[in-house]
């Protein structure tokens, strides 16, 4: 039966989707005839409108300059290519001599390479390089003259901090790489450029510290990235599922950050950072559950306050997933748990509400999610207006109309507030919250306990690249706990470094 089902699904898939394939022209080699090459390039690009060619003559040799519109800086192009070539006088003007001069004597910027096929040429041109094709040479020289527009470096919107750097990653990968390099001026910091995406050929950059990372971890990540079958990669979220080691878990073992300082801190513990061109969200592999509760501010504040903040985050996490469900469960099945005075208040408030507690909780959370989503997608001024409408509708009108009770409004408000304390777990907690409301309303405390147990087992079953995701809480290790439930001072924390592959229960070999 499952085989028959799988076959049917495969058939359906085949009729709807096509597997990504690389373009056939990519393996075409360049010849010594520049005109012939140009025709092949134009044909391969289907005469696209943004492909530009400038034909010049240098010392009597025809040269073709190729670029994509809007991708290059005219000033850089003039300074490093057009002017030097215009002033050039060769004693023996042959195509080979011109190529040697460009390659070895001219200073065409720092990014310079030679390509021999269209498949090699196109990613350069489409990244803002200029292609210099000399008639009589079966290769093309590419030089970096990038000048496309991009968002400047700014404070990361999703990871703001009180103290510390205000720099966040931006879209171009090269700028992000420099932001990391500026922070770790070590010879052990290595950056490795890869490409992913059958069509998009998106630049990826693996960043790690050679003295800290486990070779096995690195090998596994490289293999996974190589095997990504997707045709277009527009964001790091596209490759995140391919790096997740456990597909059945609701929690991811790949983290994201917009902050170069956070990425540097993570790779200094033996993790691998992955920058993806076109997105300010870098990936961190592997990422443990407790890391969701850490922020850069924890390390700049005094230890006692950092510990307080961390406990607050753990408390907020449990509040946001359990509080509405617990309220529903207690109110429906175990009202004796409420203190007497509170029980009277809750009973009085719920008396006029026409819905059962579970339905009331689901309804109000649904409305809250609707408003949150609407506020998120709309332009900011309208988003604010949505917030005001929501507060008025839910906070006042709905209570007055007797649709919901005031204690429930309090519960939702507290839950919503708590969910923003740990933003990296926002997706998970939103879904789990609904789940716990339904379980609490149908099975009471027993169901809540079962649900929580399932969640913990699910978390405990995740082995991110051979390292338990719940480490160092379980399997327990005292040394590593100093930066989990506690955050000891820098005098102690800075003395010895944690290597993630040394955590208990780890299956990968340390080095």
């Amino acid at each position, binding site marked *: 039966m499952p085989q028959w089902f799988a076959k049917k699904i495969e058939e359906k898939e085949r009729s709807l989707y096509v597997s990504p394939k690389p373009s056939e022209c990519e393996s075409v080699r360049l010849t010594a005839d520049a005109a012939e090459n140009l025709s092949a390039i134009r044909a391969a690009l289907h005469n696209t409108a943004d492909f530009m060619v400038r034909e010049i003559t240098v010392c009597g040799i025809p040269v073709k300059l190729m670029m994509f519109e809007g991708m290059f800086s005219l000033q850089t192009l003039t300074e490093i290519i057009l002017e030097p070539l215009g002033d050039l006088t060769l004693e023996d003007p042959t195509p080979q001599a011109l190529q040697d001069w460009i390659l070895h004597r001219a200073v065409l910027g720092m990014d310079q390479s030679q390509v021999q096929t269209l498949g090699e040429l196109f990613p350069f041109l489409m990244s803002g390089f200029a292609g210099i094709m000399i008639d009589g040479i079966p290769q093309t020289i590419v030089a970096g003259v990038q000048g496309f527009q991009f968002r400047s470096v700014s404070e990361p919107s999703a990871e703001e901090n009180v103290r510390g750097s205000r720099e966040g990653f931006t879209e171009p990968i090269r700028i992000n790489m420099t932001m990391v390099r500026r922070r770790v001026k070590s010879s052990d910091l290595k950056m490795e450029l890869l490409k992913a995406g059958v069509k998009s050929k998106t630049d990826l950059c693996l960043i790690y510290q050679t003295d800290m990372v486990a070779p096995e971890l690195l090998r596994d990540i490289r293999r996974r990235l190589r095997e990504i079958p997707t045709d277009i990669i527009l964001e790091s979220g596209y490759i995140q599922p391919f790096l997740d080691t456990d597909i059945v878990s609701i929690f991811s073992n790949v983290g994201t950050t917009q902050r170069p300082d956070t990425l540097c801190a993570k790779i200094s513990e033996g993790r691998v950072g992955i920058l993806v061109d076109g997105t300010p969200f870098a990936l961190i592999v592997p990422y443990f559950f407790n890391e969701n509760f850490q922020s850069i501010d924890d390390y700049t504040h005094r230890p006692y306050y950092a510990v307080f903040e961390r406990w607050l985050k753990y408390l907020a996490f449990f509040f946001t997933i359990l509080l509405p469900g617990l309220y529903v469960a*207690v109110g429906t*099945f*175990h009202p*004796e*748990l409420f*203190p*007497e*005075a*509170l029980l009277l208040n809750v009973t009085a408030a719920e008396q006029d509400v026409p819905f059962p507690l579970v339905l009331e909780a689901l309804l109000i959370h649904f409305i809250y999610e609707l408003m949150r989503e609407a506020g998120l997608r709309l332009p900011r001024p309208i988003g604010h207006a949505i917030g005001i409408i929501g507060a008025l509708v839910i906070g006042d009108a709905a209570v007055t109309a007797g649709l919901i009770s005031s204690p429930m409004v309090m519960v939702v408000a507290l839950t919503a507030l708590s969910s923003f304390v740990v933003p990296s777990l926002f997706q998970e907690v939103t879904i789990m919250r609904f789940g716990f409301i339904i379980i609490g309303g149908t*099975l*009471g*405390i*027993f*169901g*809540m*306990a*079962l649900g*929580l*147990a*399932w969640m*913990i*087992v699910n978390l*405990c*079953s995740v*082995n991110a690249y051979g390292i*338990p995701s*719940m480490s160092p*809480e*379980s*399997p*327990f290790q005292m040394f590593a706990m100093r930066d989990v439930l506690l955050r000891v001072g820098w005098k102690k924390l800075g003395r010895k470094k944690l290597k993630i592959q040394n955590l*208990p*229960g780890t*299956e990968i070999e340390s080095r």
Partner: protein
Amino acid sequence: MKGDSAISSWQLAVLLFLSRITYFFLAEPRSEGPQALTAAIWIPISILANFLLLLPAYLLLQKNKGKGLLDIAAERWGRLSLIFPAGFLLFSVCVLVQTACSFSYFLTSTAYPQSSPWLFILLIFGVAGYAASMGYEPTARFGSFVFVALSAALLFVCASLWPQAQWEFLRPPVYDGWQSQLQLFVRLTLGNVETAALLFLLPAVAKNKGGVFWRWGILSVVVLDGIILFAAAVLGDYAQTQRFPFYAVTKIAELSIFQRLDSLHVALWVFMTLVRLALFLEVGGKSLARLLPSKVSRYAISICAAASALLAGCLTRWPYALERVGNLFAGGGPVLLLTVLLPLLLLWSKRKGEAGQ
């Protein structure tokens, strides 16, 4: 089913301890109360007796490092060795059924009087089956969290009820006569089903296998003695009227404005029961996998969970049958057979084989 990797000796000790304490909470609640002081004395003695009984099996495992009892038996006895997985399977199913029935009885008689026991049995077996199918490691890690929660809950209950404890409620050890003393000793020693689980799971421990028993033993003695004595000192003769005395203790524990916390303790006991069920589902599932053809052996844990749930659900209607199962374990026969007699036989046959060579 995921591949199993090694667990630490502490993790296994905690799992066994949680399983043992669940039994005391759910299946053996009447040991508290009148015989509290007697039980408190016999618990450490029974642990020592367990140690002596397990010695031959432990020696056998030590001689065959990295192999479990089932592997050793398969090497020596061929097809006859199937008696081992069959024995462990039957044993596990009985423990699972007894635990699930006691748990559903506990819930339907305290927090959910109008619900069907089937609901609780099916749901808890569903989650326990999920945990067991994930392998030893996730269950062991989950057990660590439950252990912390249990410790916190016990400390809280003890702190809140300490002023109400009256130690004169504890009766002298020989108050109920020597015959009951002997029965209690047999029940505590040979009724300790966790010893079979210990033997089964010991090869999964990475290092310091010998430490598992002592860690488990010390934890059990300290916590069980503490709970039994404290419950008796708080409840006195009232404990005799209670089917679940420790639940009665939590009912009268108060924290500031919260006057009743028994439902929250129910949540904790759900966790503990899950650990016990997952532990014995591991044992039962792995044993069943040896008996099934390789094509279906990967569903062994699910089959074991489904069969146990069905049996448990049916047995809730026949409490006498359930009592018989309880008496069978209390008599010590199954534990003696699996942890002493069969390993001794295996050891003897191995010695004989070595002497023959």
